[in-house]
């Protein structure tokens, strides 16, 4: 099935389920029942189901539903949880401090999930279109290799040419650049200003270089471009990993506070349910 067709189908199911939930909630309210318990339990069940994705990912050996099918359910159940959340608290700010924390956590979990989904689609495409494929864990090794090459090039230029112009320039403007991943935010913003600035600076010193030094400078320029490509991959791959460090812990936090909220809700229900 094409992705667009799947998206349309899943969206239609989500809208239908949401409509049923809104209808059921309205009927429940019209019957003078406390609909907060209904929406609360449904919301908790949905959040628990959403949390199961992480467990499924930890058990790849089990012959259960594929991770991709599970992720689809996760995404659309996530949208349904927003409907349930609105049904549960209404269109208002929560009043108690516990409820405020709980609502805040929910918004953060949903928000980080939506951001993660967008990043998954955007960053993957950007990485595909930007140079060679690099394994994230290997990036520091590749950067170290480039740094060693750059250092060796500069040392060689001093030893063989007898001039410190390139070495001075390297120490002032390039050493820090080669020390580790740089310009993460700029790369995420698709800005190439940092690279442009470095290339311009390298161009600016050309007039002070001998022909032999210019050869060294050209090699250095090549290393700068390679390093910039690695930085681009680092920025996008790190972001793809980092959002989960927000989303997953917040989900566990949400479940803990939701459990406390459940206990308190029943403790102070006054026999109405």
């Amino acid at each position, binding site marked *: 099935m094409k992705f667009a067709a799947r998206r349309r189908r899943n969206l239609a199911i989500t809208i239908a389920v949401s409509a049923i939930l809104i209808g059921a909630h309205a009927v429940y309210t019209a019957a003078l029942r406390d609909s907060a318990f209904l929406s609360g339990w449904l919301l908790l069940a949905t959040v628990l189901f959403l949390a199961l*994705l992480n467990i499924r990912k930890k058990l790849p050996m089990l012959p259960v539903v594929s991770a*991709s099918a599970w992720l689809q359910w996760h995404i659309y159940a996530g949208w349904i949880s927003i409907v349930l959340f609105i049904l549960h608290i209404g269109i208002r700010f929560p009043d108690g401090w516990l409820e405020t924390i709980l609502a805040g956590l929910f918004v953060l979990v949903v928000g980080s999930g939506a951001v993660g989904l967008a990043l998954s689609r955007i960053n993957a495409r950007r990485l595909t279109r930007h140079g060679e494929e690099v394994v994230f864990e290997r990036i520091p090794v590749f950067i170290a290799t480039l740094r060693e090459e750059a250092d060796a090039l500069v040392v060689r230029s001093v030893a063989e040419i007898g001039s410190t112009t390139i070495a001075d320039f390297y120490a002032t403007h390039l050493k820090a650049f080669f020390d580790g991943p740089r310009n993460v935010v700029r790369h995420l913003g698709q800005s190439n200003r940092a690279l442009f600035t470095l290339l311009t600076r390298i161009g600016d010193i050309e007039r002070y270089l001998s022909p032999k030094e210019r050869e060294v400078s050209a090699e250095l320029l090549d290393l700068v471009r390679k390093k910039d490509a690695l930085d681009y991959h680092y920025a996008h791959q790190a972001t793809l990993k980092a959002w989960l460090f927000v989303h997953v812990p917040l989900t566990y936090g949400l479940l803990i506070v939701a459990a406390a909220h459940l206990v308190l809700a029943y403790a102070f229900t006054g026999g109405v349910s």
Partner: protein
Amino acid sequence: MTEPVLIQRPQRWDAPFGPKMSEVQVQGVLQLEPFCNMDPDKFSRATPLADIIRNDTRIRNYRNGDIIVRADDYGDSAFIVIEGKVQVVTRPGLSERLLGRTTTKKKGFFEVLRQLWSNPRDPEVRDPTRYGARRETGSRQHGTDETHVFLQDVPAVLEHHRTVRLGAGEMFGEIAALGRTPRTATVFADGDVELLELRWQGLRDIRRRDDEFRQHVDHLYRERGQKEYLRSTPLFRGLGASDLAKIADETLFETYGDFDWHTKYKKLAEASAAERLAEEPVIAQEGSYPDGVLLIRSGFARVSVQVGNGHRTISYLGRGQAFGFEEIAHNWRFDETVPYQRTLRAVGYVDVLRVPTSIMEEYVLPNMPPDQLPPPIEARGAAGSVADVSDEASGIKPGMLEFLVENRYINGTATMLINLDRCVRCDDCVKACAATHGGNPRFNRHGRRYGRYMVANACMHCVDPVCMIGCPTGAISRSSLGGQVVINDDTCIGCATCANSCPYDNIRMVEIRNDRGAFILDEDTNRPIVKATKCDLCIDQMGGPACQRACPHDALERVDMRDLPALADWLNRE
């Protein structure tokens, strides 16, 4: 400018098959059946019979019980008994265990779950005690670099299995060697035996030059399954036994391409498209008279049309597929002489059955229901324009098709394709692979790319598994569970023959350790024991390939490249 370096043009026999054959040995072999009956004058001056013997054969010695070839193994050579006798096991065949193969069973639910906590922390951990556990066979060193596996209890084998004894002058293994098909029987030495091993290039040349030998091979080929093959071909379905027999009698068996294509694969991958195409022998030429329907018996063939000064691949054909039927049917229906509309080339090595046009017109076309006849062919210009290049009926973009054919990824039955536009580089696939293989991932999420697709370095479980040629212990074989190419860790001796043969670099040699993380060493040399490892398509897991099931973004798929519609569907999901 630097001066060019002059060398002698590389010749066919720069690398003989084995250690140099002495003149006495060559003359001795020429006195043996079937060579003594061959007319040396029929051989060309460039490839005389004596030189074929000198360069394409080698003397092999086996001791009592040594397994010479195993049933279902792939091989590229035939054997002639010089002295002694061999036993051919007919039925029942020897057990998988006796042949040194893995007898994998699916894990149960709790065994699968147990992997969660039982995987070792160190890489490539093995239990060293299990390597001595096999008792029905043993292995012994023969010379410096040969290992022979032998049957411990030959009388018991002879008692429980029917065998046929072959003596001096008799040949075996020629069909498997020429046809790139699995060996049909296991053969072992009955006492000390001296054999002449003849590699496929020599076999091919002898078959080409000697009528009697060709008739012998063709007769064997017809006897062993040609009729069954024709019957299973959709074109001939519904024909009576006598018609099929007549078609089989008239059908020509042809071979094209290079049996050792895998040895040139990496070099060719760096060549230009035109250079690669030039290396592929033409089986049928666009614009020439269609003298028969070509059935692919084994291997792959590229179907292309001329565009400008080059060729555009529009499809590829594998086992069981036919070429030229549309043209012949058109000419028969409309009494015209439309030539072949496409060119057919051998990609690697191809076996072809050529059913002559006259036979098609006499036996096949008149018996075919009109609704099964192909539509008429529209006239096509001499050479297409690059402006005409668009998605073919297969639904696969031309560039992608060229990429898959030129890199021979069409060989895969479970090629790992990754859509990089959807891959978030989370490595869940790699983690899943490690979790199901004792903590050791069996593939690299890295490989050649075309556009947004990557073919990862994972075993493709090839249709033509060249890795299986030459394994001395039979450790690498096709699984009886589902045809996956698997390695039996217990019988692998770490010779790296399979890893060196795999053109795609998908087999890794690893140094093994015990459960405390210490390297397991060879007691004689004190060097680490190595084993060949690769993707086994999670043959023992309940849910199939863990890598595919673990990908949350539908980015990874194990694709059977023989199923073009499924491949097109997957590629066009965006």
